[in-house]
C-alpha cells in the first residue's frame, strides 16, 4: 500500500507541484494550506510523513504547531520542516517539538524527494 503523505504550505501553486511530484513517485498525497486544515486531516487520517512549511499564512511559526499536533497524534509519523528562516534556535525548537529533518526553502523537488525517501526509509 502507498505511503500516505501530508504536505502543508500556504502557497497553493507550490502545493500543486508537490502533489504532482510525490503522486508520480508513488505516494498517496494530501495537501493543506492552513493550520486548522492540517489539524483536521491529522485527526482523521494516519500519515507516514508530514512535510510542513514553518510559516503558515499569518502564523509565523504555524509549522511548530503542526509538529506538536503530529506528535500528540502519533509517534510514528515522520516530519520534515521546510523553512526560509536560517535561525539555529528555531531549528532547535522544531527538533525539540519532534521534527525529523529540515530543508531550506526554496527546496528543489529532487532534494525534497531524496529527503522524503530517506526519512521514510529510516522509518521502515
Amino acid at each position, binding site marked *: 500500500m502507498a505511503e500516505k503523505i501530508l504536505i502543508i504550505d500556504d502557497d*497553493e501553486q507550490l502545493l500543486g507541484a508537490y502533489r504532482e511530484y510525490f503522486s508520480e513517485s508513488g505516494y498517496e498525497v494530501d495537501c493543506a494550506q*492552513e493550520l486548522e486544515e492540517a489539524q*483536521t486531516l491529522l485527526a482523521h487520517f494516519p500519515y507516514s510523513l508530514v512535510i510542513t512549511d514553518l510559516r503558515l499564512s499569518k502564523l509565523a511559526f504555524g509549522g511548530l504547531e503542526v509538529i506538536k499536533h503530529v506528535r500528540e497524534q502519533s509517534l510514528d509519523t515522520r516530519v520534515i520542516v521546510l523553512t526560509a528562516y536560517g535561525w539555529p534556535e528555531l531549528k532547535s525548537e522544531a527538533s525539540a517539538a519532534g521534527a525529523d529533518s529540515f530543508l531550506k526553502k526554496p527546496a528543489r523537488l529532487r532534494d525534497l524527494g531524496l529527503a522524503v525517501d530517506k526519512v521514510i526509509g529510516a522509518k521502515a
Partner: protein
Amino acid sequence: MKSILETILDPMALSVCFQPIFEIRGGTKHIDSLEALVRGPRGTNFTRADILFDYVRRKKAEAAVDRTCVAAICNAASRLPVETRVNVNVHAATLGHGSGFVEFFKRHVKERSLSLDRFTLEIVEHAPTCNVPQLTDSIIELRDSGVRIALDDVGLGQSNYRMMLDCHPQYFKLDAYFVRGLAGDSKRMAVVRSLVALAGMLDSVVVAEGASSEDDLLRLAEVGVTLVQANILCPAMPLEELQRLGHVPDPKVVAYAAPRQRPFRAVDHREHLRMAAGQSFYT
C-alpha cells in the same frame, strides 16, 4: 483567491443528501422525515461531512457554516413534497450566541415558500461552553414557530443530561454507538432501555440511529423504539436518488400521501425552558 472558509461558505458549493427516518410499527414502515446531511465542496478535503464540520469547529465558524447549510438545505427541500418533514443540524453554540440564526432560519424557510412546522432542528454540540439563556430563548422562539427540537448524538460528548434539561427536546436521537450491535450486547440494551424510559418521562420520543442488523431492529421494537434511521434501511443519498428508488415521491410526477403526524402531548415547554434559562453559562 478565496480562502478555504470562504469556499465552504458558498451554499452553491455544498451538496445536500437526505437520509430517511422510518417509523416502524407492526412490521410495516413508512418515512417519518428526512434528515438533511450536508457534504462539503467536491474536490476539496472537506467533501466528507465529519471532516468538514471538524474543520469548521476548529475555525470556530459554526454559526456562519450553519447558516450556509440552512440556505443549501432550504434550496434542496423546496424540491420535496410539501408534506415531507425535514431535519436540519445546528450547533448549540449557534443558537446560544445570539448570532441571529433563528431570524435567518425563519426568513430562509419562508423565502422558499416552505412551512416552519415541517422542520426539526437537531441540536449538536461538541464544545462544553454555551450561553444557556440565549440557547433557551432561541429554542422557545423556534418551538413557538412550530419547529420541533431534537437532541442529536444523545449519550455522547456534550449531548448529556444537562442538554436534555436545557433544550427540552421532542426527540432524543440515540447515537449509533449505543444502537449498533444492540442485539448481542445486554449492556447496550440496558443503556438504550434506560434512555427510552428517560425520554418518555421527559415527553420526548427516541429516534435510534445506526442499527446494523434485523436483530438490532427487533430489539429496538422490543423496547418501544419505533423511529429508526439506519443505513441498512436506507443510506443518505441525493434527493434524485431517493426519488428514483421510490422512497420519496417526485412532487411533479406523483400525488403524495401525507405521512401520519405523531401528535405531541401539549406540555408547557416554556416553563421548563425558562428554568433552564435561570442558569448562566456552562463552565
